[in-house]
């Protein structure tokens, strides 16, 4: 083991705390860390806070609200990174129970981002007796914060100049430095970013876990919204937590035997059904690749198309062969869904680690689609290379994939050329070009830094600097609120356009995934149906983030008889599991109404938070047209039969004799109007004004009539904010 002193870490300050046992899922206190002042403090959690904000993302948003001002920008010292766990988090029985929710004012959107992440950090922090960690301030030198949950210490170290910055080296070195001995390695988890995060807002926090079988560190990402950039802006190199002694009932559950029973039931369901259903245990989320390609939903060439004959070259079976099999690849103990697969002994072809053999975490579906088909890259090696470097540099694979797709389309249209890209060829499929952007991003070189600013910035920049058509750029820059869209084609599903863009944080698929319900099965035909789904699913899925749960075990495995239920897409038996699990841990009853109310309170609080920061208007919730329909004539032409049929049957216009340009225009006008009607229906269902502001009546009905919240929405409604 590396001796911390010998290694060149200088201890700057240390504070002690009394480790506290969790009771019924809660510590009832949060840890506040000021990296500028090198101080930590304990904040109590009141019964009122617990009731209204529940935990996880709810606590994160509440602490962030209290710690910042309406004028706070992402890089102000008072912006915070809050890592919060939730009452169910840390149980080892129910699959998917190790998630932390990270909340911060996003450098990409200016509003709160929340990111759901695995790895051991959150549970280890919780077991020291904390419901959340709140980090504020800016350090004056490169700092490592070390929280020892057993010893009860918060230590601030100065990181030596020799410490590596890229995650796969940094997390490994810090794990070894802070573990007591070889046997203690699994007790350490590191939160870090990477060199890319120094320069790019589209950067992640990597949460580590020590993989005993691989004898190395793995990382899971709090990927969306640029929290890695906030970490580096605070000059924090890493936050490390250590906890030894995990056992079955550290949550001090009200009914530990019930937690075991419910968990074991799902374990068994996964073991029996997974092979016949999603094959998460063998393929992870990459099982979706060919399904999406088959349904014309796999982003191809910057979401221009949803399908390509080359699709099978990056299908699930390709990944299954590449992933090391029969390993318990959960991102927290007891997750038998085990979707966190990795490719071992992968030899890199580019960049600073060229020729080295590394372990690549993933790819997951979003990555394989984002830096694969979306860039017209069908070489698994290329995808793995981009996946690895995104992770180690601390770059979000989703934003990077969507951004690079945008650049490649700009290249195709002559908006970019080698003079403008500093010599990088961005032809479709050239993954080496994409990798060069990444390396330039990590090295702080001009084009890499420029690209890393994201598509919202780039669309405006290319229009201004290169005189390119601003409307075209706006149409193909796939972002909402400044956050790049994740990797599903939303064009043919109006409900999914809402699922992406009528969200609090930007177009991320974790609120609602309605494409099959809407487009394939046509189960929600009316605006009211769609609005109901856009109420139900975001509220239901918000709940995972309040508890410290993963969404995947909810519907990526199903009971064998799930189809017999009236609403199989809600997986009723699993929803029942959640009520029982929550009750078994907290001792408090929960039913359907209670669950939705918990979510609705926090969801509306987050919307009001957007309002407080000057956003949260209706105009912030519109997609770029690429997400809604065919931007270009050849894009229309590629699916001409489908679009012509829709024109005839839905729009009531005969496409015969019309030019492509006319047909594109008619389709566009119709779809924009449809989206407007959707917003009206959804905002109404959610209890918001037509401009998207929660009404005071609705907040009161939800029990969220907090004076500071009412002041914000009243000011907006009165036109004063």
């Amino acid at each position: 083991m590396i001796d911390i002193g010998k290694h060149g870490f200088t201890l700057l300050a240390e504070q002690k705390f009394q480790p506290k046992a969790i009771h019924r899922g809660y510590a009832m206190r949060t840890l506040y860390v000021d990296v500028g002042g090198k101080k930590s403090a304990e904040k109590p959690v009141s019964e009122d806070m617990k009731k209204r904000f529940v935990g996880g993302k709810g606590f994160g948003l509440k602490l962030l609200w209290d710690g910042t001002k309406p004028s706070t920008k992402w890089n102000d010292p008072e912006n915070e990174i809050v890592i919060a766990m939730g009452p169910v988090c840390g149980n080892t029985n129910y699959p998917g129970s190790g998630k932390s929710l990270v909340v911060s004012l996003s450098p990409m959107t200016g509003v709160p981002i929340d990111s759901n992440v695995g790895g051991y950090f959150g549970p280890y922090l919780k077991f020291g007796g904390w419901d959340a960690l709140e980090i504020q301030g800016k350090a004056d030198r490169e700092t490592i914060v070390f929280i020892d949950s057993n010893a009860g210490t918060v230590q601030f170290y100065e990181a030596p100049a020799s410490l590596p910055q890229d995650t796969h080296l940094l997390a490994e070195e810090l794990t070894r430095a802070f573990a007591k001995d070889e046997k203690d390695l699994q007790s350490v988890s590191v939160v870090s970013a990477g060199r890319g995060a120094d320069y790019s807002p589209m950067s992640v926090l990597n949460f580590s876990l020590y993989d005993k079988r691989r004898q190395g560190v793995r990382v899971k990402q709090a990927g969306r919204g640029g929290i890695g950039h906030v970490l580096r802006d605070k000059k924090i190199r890493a936050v490390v937590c250590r906890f030894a002694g995990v056992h079955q009932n550290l949550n001090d559950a009200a009914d530990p035997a019930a937690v075991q029973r419910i968990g074991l039931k799902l374990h068994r369901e996964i073991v029996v059904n997974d092979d016949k259903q999603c094959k998460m245990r063998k393929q992870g989320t990459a099982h979706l690749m060919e399904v999406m390609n088959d349904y014309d939903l796999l982003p191809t060439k910057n979401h221009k198309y949803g399908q390509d004959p080359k699709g099978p070259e990056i299908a699930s079976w390709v990944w299954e062969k590449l992933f090391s099999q029969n390993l318990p690849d959960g991102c927290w103990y007891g997750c038998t869904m085990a979707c966190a697969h990795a490719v071992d002994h992968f030899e890199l072809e580019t960049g600073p680690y060229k020729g080295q053999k590394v372990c690549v975490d993933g790819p997951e579906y979003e990555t394989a689609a984002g830096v694969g088909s979306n860039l017209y890259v069908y070489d698994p090696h290329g995808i793995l290379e981009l996946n690895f470097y995104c992770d180690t540099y601390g770059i979000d694979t989703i934003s990077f994939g969507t951004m690079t797709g945008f650049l490649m389309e700009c290249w195709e249209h002559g908006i970019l050329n080698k003079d403008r890209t500093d010599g990088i060829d961005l032809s479709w499929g050239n993954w080496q070009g994409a990798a060069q952007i990444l390396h330039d991003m990590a090295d702080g070189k001009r084009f890499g830094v420029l690209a890393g600013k994201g598509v919202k910035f780039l669309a405006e920049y290319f229009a201004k600097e290169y005189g390119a058509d601003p409307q075209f750029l706006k149409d193909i820059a796939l972002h909402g609120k400044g956050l790049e869209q994740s990797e599903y084609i939303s064009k043919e599903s109006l409900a999914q356009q809402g699922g992406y863009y009528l969200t609090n944080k930007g177009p991320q698929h974790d609120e609602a995934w309605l494409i099959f319900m809407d487009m394939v099965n046509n189960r929600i035909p009316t605006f009211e149906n769609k609005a109901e789904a856009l109420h139900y699913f975001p509220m239901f899925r918000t709940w995972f983030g309040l508890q410290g749960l993963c969404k995947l075990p909810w519907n990526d495995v199903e009971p064998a008889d799930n189809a017999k239920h009236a609403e199989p897409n809600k997986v009723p038996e699993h929803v029942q599991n959640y009520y029982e699990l929550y009750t078994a841990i907290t001792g408090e009853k929960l039913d359907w109404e209670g669950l939705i109310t918990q979510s609705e309170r926090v969801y509306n609080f987050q919307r009001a938070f957007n309002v407080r920061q000057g956003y949260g208007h209706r105009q912030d919730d519109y997609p770029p047209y690429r997400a809604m329909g065919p931007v270009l004539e050849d894009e229309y032409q590629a699916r001409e039969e489908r679009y012509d049929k829709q024109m005839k049957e839905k729009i009531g216009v005969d496409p015969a004799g019309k030019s492509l340009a006319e047909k594109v225009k008619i389709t566009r006008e119709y779809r924009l109007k449809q989206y407007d009607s959707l917003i009206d229906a959804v905002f109404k269902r959610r209890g918001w004004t037509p401009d998207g502001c929660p009404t005071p009546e609705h907040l009161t009905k939800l029990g969220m009539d907090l004076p500071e919240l009412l002041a914000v929405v009243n000011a907006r409604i009165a036109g004063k904010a």
Partner: protein
Amino acid sequence: MIKYLKLHDDKCVGCQNCMATCSRLYFKAEDPARSRIQVFPAGPGKHHLVACDQECRKCVAECPTQAITVNSQGVVMINKGLCVGCLACVAVCPIGAMRYYPGESTPYKCVACGACVKTCPADALEIAQKEDSPASRLPFETAQAVRKEEAQA
């Protein structure tokens, strides 16, 4: 070689002495629910015995903390100090030989200690040895494969 408890269903008389002995030895209580060997009725006068065959090792491959390992005698053992109580091993056990007691953290299984053999009046139990079969090696070896490859490289 693998040391294991060989079960002879045809000789079992269903007296449950084995279960009493086992639970007494490991839990200091005569409680069939805490026994590592199970006797099930299987029709008139017939019985079916269940205990770990030490062979499939699915639990070894599944354990996230490597609390479950194979000892030098080929017996699958659980290290209580490392176990986090997730019960994934219970779920993957194809014969229900990995057991747990509600509310207690660590699962338990037959470790071929032979205590029950002595109390069986019908010679239905014996401690025996068998060769490692490819089936027995597969999950365990695959779980270790990554490490081995690394060592070679």
